[in-house]
């Protein structure tokens, strides 16, 4: 992976009548990276992907791929290939002919064409099914055919439109690992559209989180999870305890905030910069607070009463009321030590990490 930009999206806007699907979106996608567009349905992520592939037009702005403007380049002449959400396997052709479809135009000769098809089928472990028709394939197999059919074209960029959404959970998790492995072995840029935050975090080098036609944050998975830039991003990526706080002095990238429950804390300014007065919120992830068992000590402790308990198998969520007038805290605790046995009403101590607090824009 290099820092060279493979795809440059500049001030791209898409309007359908009065509705703005994409609003001045700009982002650079690097050569060889696995990049995800993550967001709820209707956030514009699929529109952006289809624009990169050449299937949707831009109302304004520009997209460049490999340094070249895609302004007047139709989909069939772009250095991109797409894996469609429905897979779009040609039902009248068998697996090998589906994969060879795009090569036919290149007139490679029968031997070379067969070699390329075999190579692509081997990449997705489908060599044994080359004679099957689409109707005889399972969902997972169809997806592999769609992948092979795109990869055989040796595109600079592979676009994936929610490729795993139609698969069941187990197969989806297996395909996440395989897709990541495949991307690393072929080394080309992958752009994935998904609404599943775990999928985006597990597979990507970087994630762009989109809401309402705008990209709210672009960062590596850990960064985006640990330091979400806005309340929306934090919420979309998992649980977050929002804490009432009074914002104090800003010194460089440090801010002191005053909270009723946790006292005065020093935190970093939000990832997207310090917002105006009253526009910042403080939060801490539920798994960054833990139950302090009898005999244990910790530097920072807060006392409270368990008011609800939710069991999730590997973890238990405890809802803890810490003090009069404070918002209840959600604590995510692994079940190794018996968090699932703590009865509602128990008075407990919670240990927390002062560095785990994150300041976000509203």
């Amino acid at each position, binding site marked *: 992976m290099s820092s060279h930009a493979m795809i440059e999206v500049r001030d791209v806007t898409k309007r359908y009548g009065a509705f703005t699907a994409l609003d001045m979106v700009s982002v650079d996608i690097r050569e060889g990276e696995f990049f995800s567009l993550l967001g709820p349905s209707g956030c514009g992520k699929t529109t952006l992907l289809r624009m990169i*592939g050449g*299937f949707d037009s831009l109302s304004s702005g520009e997209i460049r791929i490999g340094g070249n403007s895609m302004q007047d380049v*139709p*989909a*069939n*002449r772009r250095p*991109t*290939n*797409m894996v*469609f*959400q*429905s897979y*779009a396997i*040609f*039902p*009248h052709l068998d697996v090998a002919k589906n994969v060879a*479809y*795009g090569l036919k*135009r*290149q007139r490679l000769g029968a031997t070379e064409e067969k070699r390329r098809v075999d190579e692509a089928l081997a990449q997705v472990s489908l060599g044994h099914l080359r004679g099957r*028709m*689409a*109707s005889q394939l399972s*969902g997972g197999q169809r997806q592999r055919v769609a992948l092979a*059919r*795109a990869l055989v*074209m040796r595109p600079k960029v592979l676009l994936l439109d929610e490729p795993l959404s*139609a698969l069941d959970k187990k197969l989806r998790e297996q395909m996440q690992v395989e897709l990541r492995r495949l991307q690393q072995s072929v080394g080309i840029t992958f752009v994935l559209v998904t609404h599943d935050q775990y999928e985006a975090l597990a597979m990507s080098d970087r994630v762009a989180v989109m809401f309402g036609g705008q990209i709210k944050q672009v960062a590596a998975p850990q960064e985006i999870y640990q330091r979400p830039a806005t309340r929306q991003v934090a919420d979309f990526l998992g649980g977050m305890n929002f804490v009432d706080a009074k914002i104090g002095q800003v010194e460089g990238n440090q801010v002191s905030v005053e909270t009723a429950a946790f006292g005065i804390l020093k935190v970093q300014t939000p990832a997207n910069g310090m917002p105006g007065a009253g526009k910042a919120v403080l939060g801490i992830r539920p798994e960054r607070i833990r139950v302090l068992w009898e005999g244990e000590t910790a530097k920072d402790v807060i006392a409270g009463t368990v008011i609800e308990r939710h069991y999730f198998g590997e973890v238990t969520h405890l809802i803890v009321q810490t003090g009069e007038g404070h918002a209840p805290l959600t604590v995510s605790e692994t079940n190794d030590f018996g968090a699932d046995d703590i009865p509602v009403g128990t008075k407990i101590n919670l240990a927390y990490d002062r560095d785990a607090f994150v300041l976000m824009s509203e």
Partner: protein
Amino acid sequence: MRMTRAIGRYWLAAYALLFMLFLYLPVLLISVFAFNNSAVPAFPLAGFTTKWFGTLAGTVPIHQAAWNSLKVALFTAAMSTVLGICVARAATRYAFRGKQMIKGVIMAPLILPEIIVAVSLLIMMLRLGLELSLVTVAAGHVLFCLPYSISVLVAGFDGFDRSLEEASTDLGETAFGTFWRVTLPMMMPSIISSLLVAFTVSFDEFILAFFLGGTSPTLPVYMFAQLRFAAKLPAVLALGTVILVVSILLLIVAETYRHRAERRVKFEGN
């Protein structure tokens, strides 16, 4: 209760049987009298003969009329299917102003009384100074068959997954190549149905052919003219039998082919 149900079933079976008899007995009788050794189609039968088929084989104007019908029907089937594909594609893919009205106008010949259509076409063609011939018959038939073709083809295009065409474009294919390599093979079952429907409608169409045919009669027009002469009736019955057999064979072949094409492109879903 059981009793009522049994009676109901009995009546339903009787009704179905009567319906089938009413529908197919006259057709069956044509074939029977075609082999009857008598110039009058009446019972009792006068013995088996194939001489009417001999007469048929020896009557040149019949061959001419059959050939006329075949030419017109083939042209009509091809033309209304090609035009139908364009209409069906536009109607299912694009949104444009006046779409509903245009669709309504195109489908109108289906509900307008055919005699009105025939007379107005005749007047128009004479005004335009066109000579009545098989060409004018074919033109009328295309107009008349197009709605049938469109109905069949629109149903086919409606169930077509657009992302298949996008996938083809994505893989480097041009618009024409995509149509040729994806759309057309996928549409094959509907296209065969459209060809078949248009061919059949045109082949036995009488009113337009009668008005617009000039001195070139198609088969139905020729047969109608022959009915005035009692002596010619058995040969017409023989001709009817031949048409019947050919139609059934054609239907079987087309259905088999269509079914095969359909199985090839059918998805069983996820």
